[in-house]
């Protein structure tokens, strides 16, 4: 049976190892980002334990950074939590994209997948989920990728908290640029169709224009504008190209 040989070929262990391997470039990109987070945390008033706890329990880099900035600026707790909601709302969009693939999974799998859902893990694992083979172990691929990302994030936070403190003026090195380079590397492979390029361009433009909105709301506004632009371009391009060619 074809399915039996598929099962044999891709055991849970092999799926997990493949996931861990495929996410390595993104892990490398996250290393400087995690270290700088740990380095900056103590200066903003977060204790050693709470900094590690944030990486272990929140596990959402951008919102962790924004929380540090808000803490240092003297923001109140409800305001920081509200901003966290806005910045992390994008994960709900990722979850929506994962829906068709997790419907059969147990509630325990769903909780694990949800807890470990990040930009990087999503971008890598959605490709595996979309492959047509009927492997029942694709969640193990997700787990391998996500746990690698998770372990690295905690380790780098700890490194920043300890070793990072010994580096003079570590914040001025611009280590956070690693996230920019990583995300660009994740975005560019998508930019292959005209609607997608249009969506990306609109999102970037609106993100700049809406940057002044409170609670980082500009992120969601830009995301919605970009998706709408891509969708609109898609519907415009299809009917026009037919009669002319």
């Amino acid at each position, binding site marked *: 049976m074809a399915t039996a040989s598929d099962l044999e070929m891709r055991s849970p262990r092999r799926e997990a190892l493949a996931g861990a391997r495929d996410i390595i*470039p993104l892990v*490398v990109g996250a290393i*400087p980002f995690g270290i700088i987070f740990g380095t900056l945390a103590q200066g903003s*008033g*977060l204790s050693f334990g*709470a900094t590690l*706890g*944030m990486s272990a*329990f*929140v596990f959402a880099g951008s919102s962790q950074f924004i*929380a540090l900035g808000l803490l240092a600026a003297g923001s109140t707790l409800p305001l920081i*939590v509200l901003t*966290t*909601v806005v910045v992390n709302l*994008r*994960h*709900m969009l*990722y*979850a*929506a*994209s*994962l*829906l*068709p693939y*997790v419907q059969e999974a147990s*509630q325990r799998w*769903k909780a694990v997948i*949800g807890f470990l*859902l990040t*930009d990087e893990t*999503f971008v890598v694992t959605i490709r595996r989920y979309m492959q047509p083979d009927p492997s029942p172990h694709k969640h193990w691929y997700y787990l391998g990728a996500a746990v690698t990302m998770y372990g690295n994030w905690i380790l780098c936070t700890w490194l920043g908290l300890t070793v990072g403190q010994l580096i003079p003026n570590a914040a001025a090195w*611009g280590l956070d*640029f690693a*996230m*920019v*380079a*990583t*995300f*660009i*590397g*994740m*975005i*560019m492979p*998508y930019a292959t169709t005209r609607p*997608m390029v249009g*969506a*990306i361009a609109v*999102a*970037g*433009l609106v*993100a*700049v224009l809406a*940057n002044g909105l409170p609670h980082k709301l*500009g*992120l969601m506004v830009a*995301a919605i504008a*970009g*998706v709408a632009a*891509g*969708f609109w371009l898609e519907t415009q391009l299809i009917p026009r190209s037919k009669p002319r060619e």
Partner: protein
Amino acid sequence: MTDWLLVAAMALVTFSIRYVLLAFSGRIRLSPTLVRALGYVPPVVLTAIVVPAVVLPAGDLWLGWQNARLVGAIASMVLALWRKNLLLTIAGGMAVFWGWQWLMAWLVAQPFLG
């Protein structure tokens, strides 16, 4: 212990956002239109995070050649399109960014440039 309260609150809202749709996935049916729209989500969201970090590093628009983030970002884009190797894009982009930052600092230190 306010910092632990903050961690707990952030963890709770973040997990809820990530988990809620998955938890009820058995009862949710997405329309094909919505699925098509969701295809745009990853690059669009990542772009909305990255672009302000590059051109608004300190809150004001900075499109000059002296902006090392902008030069590093353009280098990353070129590398990503040219080689399609993620690790090369990250390492190369970082190298260009650091090199440019160093160059700018060196230029500023030259007496003839003030």
